[in-house]
């Protein structure tokens, strides 16, 4: 990758060769059809990747495989140079991983206790404030809107503080101020030297925010390259498809 921007500050910046995610030939089947087919990915640590593609192109499946919730049927996966194990990559997905019967604060406390982190109210309140749920911490998640659930699962991911963050449609269900907040969050995470992978339809926005991009179609990797070229690649994909349909 020539023309790399100046290496960022943060723990991983020094050894550029360390790959946060190294995947070869990842395939995953759901029942009869293959949601993911032979996907390769090499993402240096500390970089931000946007995964784009239409609905059902395999974005969510890829992120769940990278996180470890799904075991790939084919292919190898290494995180930060080591064989994959859960806990090194935190996932924010459509499923909020929360308990409806409990409050936002209680959900975070459980996560903190599982991680062996301080789980007092004073430790968790700042996190809730950061994601914009400061006032609603003690309400039950049952009463949360989809956007608030997304904010809570983002708080969970921040609490986990894993070196790799996988955000599946972070902008989805969020209100307009939320969009700006996500942009700031991604920038802050990158300053901390974290590796961030975003699966999203916000192609324009993320092409400015991320370093690299990956385009999926029907579970296959059809294009990869600098994020700035993503919008163009996306349009080309649409042309190819419209021609195929027309013929």
């Amino acid at each position, binding site marked *: 990758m020539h023309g790399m921007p100046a290496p960022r500050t943060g723990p991983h910046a020094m050894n550029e060769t360390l790959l946060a995610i190294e995947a070869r030939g990842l395939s995953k089947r759901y029942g009869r059809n293959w949601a993911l087919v032979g996907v390769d990915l090499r993402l240096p640590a500390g970089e931000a990747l946007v995964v784009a593609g239409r609905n059902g192109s395999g974005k969510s499946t890829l992120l769940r495989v990278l996180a*470890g919730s*799904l075991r790939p049927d084919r292919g190898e996966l290494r995180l930060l140079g080591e064989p994959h194990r*859960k806990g090194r990559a935190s996932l924010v997905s459509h499923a909020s*991983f*929360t*308990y409806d019967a*409990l409050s936002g604060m209680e959900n975070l406390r459980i996560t903190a206790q*599982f991680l062996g982190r301080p789980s007092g109210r004073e430790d968790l309140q700042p996190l809730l404030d950061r994601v914009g749920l400061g006032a609603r911490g003690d309400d039950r998640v049952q009463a949360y809107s989809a956007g608030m659930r997304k904010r809570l699962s983002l708080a969970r991911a921040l609490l986990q503080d894993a070196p790799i963050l996988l955000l599946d449609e972070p902008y989805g269900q969020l209100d307009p101020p939320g969009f700006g907040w996500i942009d700031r969050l991604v920038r802050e995470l990158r300053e901390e030297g974290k590796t961030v992978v975003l699966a999203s339809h916000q192609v324009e926005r993320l092409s400015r925010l991320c370093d690299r991009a990956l385009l999926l179609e029907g579970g296959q990797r059809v294009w990869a390259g600098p994020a700035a070229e993503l919008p163009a690649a996306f349009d080309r994909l649409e042309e190819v498809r419209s021609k195929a349909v027309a013929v």
Partner: protein
Amino acid sequence: MRVVRAAFRKDLLLSWRGRAQGMAVVVFGATLLLLLSFAVGPNATTLRQLAGGFLWVALLFSSTLALTESFRLEREHRAIEGLLLLGAHPAAIFYGKALANWLHLFAVGLALIPVMVVLYDPGLSGIGGLIGILALGTAGISAPGTLHAGLASQIRAQQVLLPLLLFPLVVPVLIAAVRSSSLLLLGDPMGQARSWALLLLAFNGIFWPLCGLLFGHVIEE
């Protein structure tokens, strides 16, 4: 170990928050005790004879409700997947859940004892020993029960599958618990209850480690 404690506290909180369902399970068990006595008729001596048996049959059926409920919240927003992604070991999650289910079933059993005493009027002297058997028996149901509840919660026909998979496994628990409970309630001249209790202990000794070992396969995709 820390993760087991965290998982156990989480499940206790969930059971406490869902105590309304817990009450419903107790009412279900009590109703069952009542219905079973209709199967026998008002003859006091036969009812007294069958008190131990009816208690455990009611508890066994109530346990499927409690076990299914214990995984409903885990599946709703894939909370259990979230815990695994934190790097928590599946066995730790199992033992947290199984211990909470044990406590829950034990509480249901305790709540059913007065109902049984009122309906069937067994001797009260053996109640102390009975509570010990209750603890061992509910532990015997909770280990394989939690394993299969975790499995059945991911399948469409879970109401049918959980009992079908669980009941054959807990036959020894049912036999030992009913025999020792009846001996305690109706008099135990040769002190056999103790050896039944040992059998229950052996059952727990086999299934608590085995189910913990296999639980990872059940919840990881």
